[in-house]
């Protein structure tokens, strides 16, 4: 085909306006929410003491840190959706959820506790946590990777990993409604491990599907 002919067809297609990537990502995550929620309803109940747990700052903190992780990862993945963009200027944002966890752990040691710190770290549901968060994250991860394809990243593996962290953050927030372990030590260990797992999956899928 002659290049001039191709250009003519591109100009003819110019009125097709493309929506920004963030809009697609947001729509995709919202579409995945009922699916993740349905998986949750089928496998777990909300914790029985939910009504009183919301007054426990360590319970509330789990949602804060998971949603901050999801937001930061979403923002960074959108930033990297422009060709040639790098994490140089904004990568430090990933330290925000980690820093929040650090502060919460200090607070955890500062207040009187019934259980030893090792018991709080090991908790009562580590395996359930490790298995459920990735499970709840899957619909979000699929939606994030699918919609981020509309961007043009030159860092497909990194954006895939960020999509994984974003999905794990959202999956973790859903799991937190069930999870009886509120200690930040537990969150820092098991929620983080689960998030790393999803990030690794996201990185490898992203490397394949996010090329443009």
């Amino acid at each position, binding site marked *: 085909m002659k290049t001039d002919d191709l250009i003519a*067809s591109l100009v003819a297609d*110019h009125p097709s306006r493309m929506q920004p990537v963030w809009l697609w990502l947001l729509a995709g995550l919202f579409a995945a929410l009922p699916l993740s929620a349905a998986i949750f309803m089928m496998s777990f109940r909300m914790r029985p003491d939910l009504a009183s747990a919301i007054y426990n700052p360590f319970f509330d903190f789990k949602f804060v840190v998971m949603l901050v992780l999801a937001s930061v990862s979403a923002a960074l993945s959108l930033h990297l959706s422009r*060709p040639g963009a790098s994490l140089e200027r904004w990568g430090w944002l990933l330290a925000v959820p980690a820093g929040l966890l650090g502060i919460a752990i200090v607070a955890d040691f500062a207040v009187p506790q019934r259980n030893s710190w090792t018991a709080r770290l090991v908790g009562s549901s580590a395996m359930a946590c490790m298995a459920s968060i990735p499970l709840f994250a899957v619909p979000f991860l699929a939606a994030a990777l699918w919609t981020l394809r509309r961007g*043009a990243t030159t860092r497909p593996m990194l954006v895939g990993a960020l999509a994984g962290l974003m999905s794990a953050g959202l999956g973790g927030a859903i799991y937190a409604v069930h999870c009886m372990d509120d200690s930040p030590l537990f969150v820092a260990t098991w929620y983080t491990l689960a998030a790393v797992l999803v990030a690794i999956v996201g990185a490898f899928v992203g490397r394949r599907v996010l*090329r443009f």
Partner: protein
Amino acid sequence: MSGQEHEWTDLMRSANAGDAAAYHRLLSAITPVLRASARRGLLRAGQSPDQSEDIVQDTLLAVHLKRHTWDPKAPFAPWLFTIARNKLIDALRRRGRRVFVDIDDFTDVLPGEDAPEPANGVDVAAHLQLLPPRQRDVLQAIAVDGLSISETAQKFTMKEGTVRVALHRGLASLAARAREELS
């Protein structure tokens, strides 16, 4: 930054505002530069510059389909050269080499020193034949036969909206096929 690059940025801004003529001018203006840098990149990698037109067409498709990822506050040229570099690396990788491409190959926006003759792209033409019939017919009518959207709609007794959708999907599948060859 050269005046040419400022001109590209202005053209792309006008294009984003809906000016199709500006878009045509922009694509025509960047093509010789893309052609020269593709040839240079192939030669540096010890490859024949024959396939440079395929790289040019791949790059133009990507520019078109990803133009919403250009930040209108930023200059256009660095965005363009990142995409062009990406497409050159893809083309070289398709031939089974691990490559490192120097970004400097692209930052020189003078049209090619030896002003290469435009050749025909082979890949896009081959991929075109593999498209679903409706997308292929519409693309062929608009690209090769030079028909407008409304003329194409009349020719195939389709609605104009349907022609537009088929055109856009056709272009997106052309880009997708070039990518699939990689994996």
